[in-house]
């Protein structure tokens, strides 16, 4: 199975991540586990963005919408479970991850389907702006929902339950995040290499030509957009659980920007690079924030250097040439 340098690099990364909690305990730095969980969750969202940004060439500036929606679905379901009162008098709340996480994925992908259906009628700068506008609408919608905390966000009393394991344990939660990320990466890896993936790449390269070949490109792009929304929704649902908090910050346009930075740092159209980008961005942030509030001052030049000199980002530097075929 392991044939390429890229696969070796990915497996090595997985091995490092698998022993990380053990290593963190060994050096007595338990907080590293919660930090690493946040990184994995952000990586999941960044990978989902790379699917449409890197492979589809769809510069969505509203990916935080699906991230935040995923978080709020978990938060709102837990809120109604606590109140013992059904949502709209119809949907009962739940504090079970096996219900809440799939619900978050479903709602986020439906939202992506709706937003994508309208946004994908445009392209280029218009697409960037319309996805941004939709995401801001979602942001202000949740800020105005006073029942669910408005500006302050929605606090959960505890993480969701999961049969057989205790998600309140940070190490257990870390492995849940790692499993979710690995599963989504495996899925995306097959996806981008499949016939569907070829069509998505073709749309990035030359959409007019795709139409001339007889492809109805809109449906393929919309499907990719919805799958990406589902991935971001799962990430958001995990973050809300991790922090026991769904906040409007998850929906803010700066979150969309952060996810884009992760993808670009790691290398667009590489999937695994987005994981690397998440590590670098959040790592730099926590490291430098200890010294200065102006950590962006360091990040900016790093980003510029990567864009100028590394064609496929950091992952390209590690894993070698493109496997675009």
């Amino acid at each position, binding site marked *: 199975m392991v044939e390429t340098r890229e696969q070796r690099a990915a497996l090595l990364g997985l091995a490092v991540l698998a022993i990380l909690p053990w290593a963190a305990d060994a050096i007595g730095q338990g907080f590293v586990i919660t930090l690493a969980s946040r990184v994995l969750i952000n990586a999941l969202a960044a990978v989902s963005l790379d699917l449409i940004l890197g492979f589809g060439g769809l510069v969505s500036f509203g990916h935080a919408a699906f991230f935040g929606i995923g978080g709020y679905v978990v938060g709102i379901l837990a809120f109604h479970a606590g109140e013992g009162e059904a949502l709209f008098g119809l949907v009962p709340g739940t504090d079970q991850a096996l219900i809440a996480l799939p619900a978050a994925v479903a709602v986020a992908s439906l939202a992506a389907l709706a937003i994508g259906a309208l946004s994908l009628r445009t392209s280029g700068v218009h697409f960037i702006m319309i996805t941004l506008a939709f995401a801001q609408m979602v942001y202000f919608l949740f800020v105005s929902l006073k029942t669910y905390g408005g500006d302050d966000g929605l606090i959960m009393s505890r993480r969701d339950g999961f049969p057989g394991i205790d998600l309140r344990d940070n190490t257990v939660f870390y492995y849940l995040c790692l499993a979710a990320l690995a599963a989504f990466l495996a899925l995306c890896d*097959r*996806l981008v*290499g*499949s*016939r*569907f*993936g*070829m*069509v998505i*790449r*073709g749309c*990035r*390269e*030359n959409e*007019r*030509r*795709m*139409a*001339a*070949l*007889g*492809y*109805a490109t809109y449906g*393929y792009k919309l*499907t990719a957009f919805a799958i990406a929304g589902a991935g971001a929704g799962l990430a958001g649902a995990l973050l809300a659980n991790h922090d026991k908090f769904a906040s409007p910050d998850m929906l803010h346009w700066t979150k969309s920007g952060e996810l884009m930075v992760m993808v670009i740092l790691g290398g667009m159209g590489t999937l695994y690079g987005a994981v690397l980008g998440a590590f670098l961005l959040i790592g730099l942030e926590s490291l430098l924030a200890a010294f200065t509030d102006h950590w962006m001052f360091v990040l900016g030049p790093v980003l510029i250097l990567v864009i100028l000199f590394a064609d496929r980002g950091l992952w390209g530097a590690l894993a070698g040439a493109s496997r*675009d*075929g």
Partner: protein
Amino acid sequence: MAEALLAVEGLTKRFGGLAATDRASLQVEEGTIHALIGPNGAGKSTLIAEIAGEIEPDAGRIRFAGQDITALPVAQRVKRGLVRSYQITSIFPGLSALGNVAIAVQATQGNSYRFWSRARRDPRLLDPARALLEEFGLGPRAAIRAADLAHGEQRQLELAMALATGPRLLLLDEPMAGMGAEESAAIVEALGRLKGRITMLLVEHDMDAVFALANRITVMVYGRPIASGDAAAIRANPEVRAAYLGEGDA
């Protein structure tokens, strides 16, 4: 006589005050290479785009294989076998030469909502794609990124892609544009080999190529075909000579 494979009747397209296509009529018989010539700005590319479905005409009808396709979108026309290539090379620059043709082959094999099996290991895509690359002399270049191919090779690739879709009628808009003599000769040879197998409507400025390939030639000036006939008839036509001399461009 049976109806022509492609029949254009009274096609008109106005851009503001300018009639880019002016009540144009044209018939392309199955199995022929039909050349469309005329001075720059005569509306050849516009006519091709209308036939391909990229530009909607203001009036007139287009019939293909006995059916009215005037209102059909591009993808539907392609499915019926009406396929075009571009004057400006239109390929997928970031994909390999093989990948370019494979994506064209894939378009003929039903919908692509297939998410799991690896397209780059699928012989149903790769075998026909390799065969087409061989036919156009690109076999050894299969793994090269299309962006890194020479200009002439990119044009060859473009033709291979157009053929991969299994066309009944190929619309070729200046397939030899910007090519050296040697590269042009290779294209003429490749098209010559396809003659009789695939019907072509060819827009081309290179008169040697046109006279070498075409069974029938239509001359277009100011959006209207002014003459149609075989090579000898067109050479002798005084109207054609006047139009060309008047424009000072061939």
